[in-house]
């Protein structure tokens, strides 16, 4: 419990720093938000009106503090492009991104864990060579390209799945698979090496010696210990996951945060971009936190460790 609390408290200054960086990046640059939206042809009156709405006559820090206050109240500013509240816009798109993220991690953990276990169980055989060889090559495939290939095969040629867009779970099959492909190689190889390493430990030998059945030794003794580095690996990869996530959402026209952030960046829509970026960062943190808790459950020694 204390461990969990400490991790939560650690996240606060990080998120604050992050929000400050995001705010300043979009603020301190030459050309205010007003001039980014309105081109040179617009009248000065229009500019100063917009400027007043954005209260850009006040010092940066004042605006940052009031922005921060707004964040806590769910007032995240309004989109300059379409005038809708940023908060609503983000909540509208959160489910899609969460579904994609959680789905991809789940699929990758399942497939990668299975492939890695098979390779470890048959170490040195053809199975092992085939699995490790294939995932080694798969590690260098760009996930958005994998997405395009999958679409051209399963959607265009065979017609099994819808092409682009959203609406039904079937629309998420190819996106989830493409994001998962980026994660599977690392998980497979780590599972394999972790299992091989754990299998040699003395407590496993002892379990075998006590006559515990193979299956029970594997699930009760080997698996939880071998899973620890894999779970931490998934957490760390969550940060890199964002990259493939954004591209995939754009390709498939999914109503997610990545696509929203890209659109906001190309439109130079500051509040929308701030909101989307921070939400993605919070999701990343949440994944890291869940991973920490899982690791703690798997390895009770950590929770009781001194700071």
């Amino acid at each position, binding site marked *: 419990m204390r461990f969990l609390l400490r991790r939560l408290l650690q996240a606060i200054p990080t998120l604050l720093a992050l929000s400050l*960086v995001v705010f300043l990046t979009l603020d301190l640059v030459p050309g205010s938000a007003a001039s980014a939206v309105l081109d040179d042809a617009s009248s000065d009156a229009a500019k100063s009106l917009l400027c007043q709405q954005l209260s850009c006559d006040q010092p940066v820090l004042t605006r940052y503090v009031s922005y921060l206050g707004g964040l806590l109240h769910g007032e995240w500013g309004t989109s300059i492009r379409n005038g809708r509240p940023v908060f609503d816009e983000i909540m509208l798109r959160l489910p899609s991104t969460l579904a994609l993220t959680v789905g991809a991690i789940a699929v990758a953990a399942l497939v990668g864990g299975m492939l890695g276990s098979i390779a470890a169980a048959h170490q040195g055989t053809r199975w092992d060579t085939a699995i490790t060889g294939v995932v080694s090559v798969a590690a260098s495939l760009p996930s958005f390209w994998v997405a395009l290939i999958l*679409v*051209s095969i399963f959607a265009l040629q065979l017609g099994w799945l819808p092409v682009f867009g959203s609406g039904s779970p079937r629309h998420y099959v190819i996106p989830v698979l493409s994001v998962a492909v980026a994660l599977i190689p690392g998980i497979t190889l780590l599972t394999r090496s972790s299992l091989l390493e754990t299998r040699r430990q003395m407590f496993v030998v002892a379990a075998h010696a006590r006559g515990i059945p193979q299956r029970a030794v594997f699930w009760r003794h080997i698996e939880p210990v071998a899973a620890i580095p894999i779970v931490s690996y998934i957490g760390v990869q969550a940060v890199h996951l*964002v990259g493939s996530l954004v591209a995939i959402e754009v390709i498939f026209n999914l109503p997610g945060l990545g696509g929203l952030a890209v659109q906001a960046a190309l439109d*130079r829509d500051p509040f929308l*971009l701030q909101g989307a970026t921070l939400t993605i960062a919070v999701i990343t943190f949440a994944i890291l936190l869940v991973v920490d808790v899982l690791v703690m459950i798997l390895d009770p*020694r950590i929770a009781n*460790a001194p700071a």
Partner: protein
Amino acid sequence: MAARLSIRTLNGNLTRAHLPDVQVHLALPKRFLGAAIVLVVCLMALFAPQIVPGDPSQIDARSRLQAPSLEHPFGTDAFGRDLFRRVVHGAQPSLGVSVFAVALGAFPGILLGMMAGRRGRWLDHLLTQVMDAWIALPGVLLALLLAAVMGRSLVVLTLALGVGTIPMFYRVARAETLRIRSALYVEAAVSLGADSWRITRAHVLPNIASSMIVLCTVMVGRMLLATSALSFIGLGAPPPSPEWGGLLAEGRTHMHEAWWLMWFPGLIIALTTFGFYLLGNSVRDQQAGE
């Protein structure tokens, strides 16, 4: 004591997981193959105009969307441009961004990592906290922010990706420095009264250099994937540029009728990344052997 130890091992695992450690398990002459791929792509980046003369953006309305043939080995795109020429000319922007991004991240990252590892105490604490926060802002988001502020260009892309990799280099350089901190030759240098800068330059740097080179090589591959993904979604160079991610974005609009526009740029990205992974891996294998 036991608890301490477990935290250590956990951190060890985390550091390992943080490494962009792409293990390549293949019964191939890794070093030869990796070096060959990297060499060919580098030659393409440096001497594209000599290899395939002509302007990569030259439009030829008569030869629109032609399938691969002897005349056009990779086919032509919707504007009749030769895809093979565009792919070869695209090596320069694609590889350029990746290499410069790695250089941009490696220099400050390794320097700070060595400082933190050498000094320890509050400097180490502070830097590690900052870097942990930094790593939560992925390069992609940074690229989005910078693109909104400075417009879309390859320079902005390089900057964003480079700044985003600093924590990665920091972590590994710090861990490596800590590993050799208590080595006898470092202690000997300290007892001889060498100053901190001299120890870092003459003892730490040469001893972590090889693993840093491996890291850089693998990171170039990783940056190539990131560069092409970001170019693909429109954050790289504007259209006429033959950057590989951009080529794929163009190919996507014609994926119904022209498979070659999608396959060849994608294959070259994958092959180049694979080449860098292989090369980095073969060097690491050799180090482990020693």
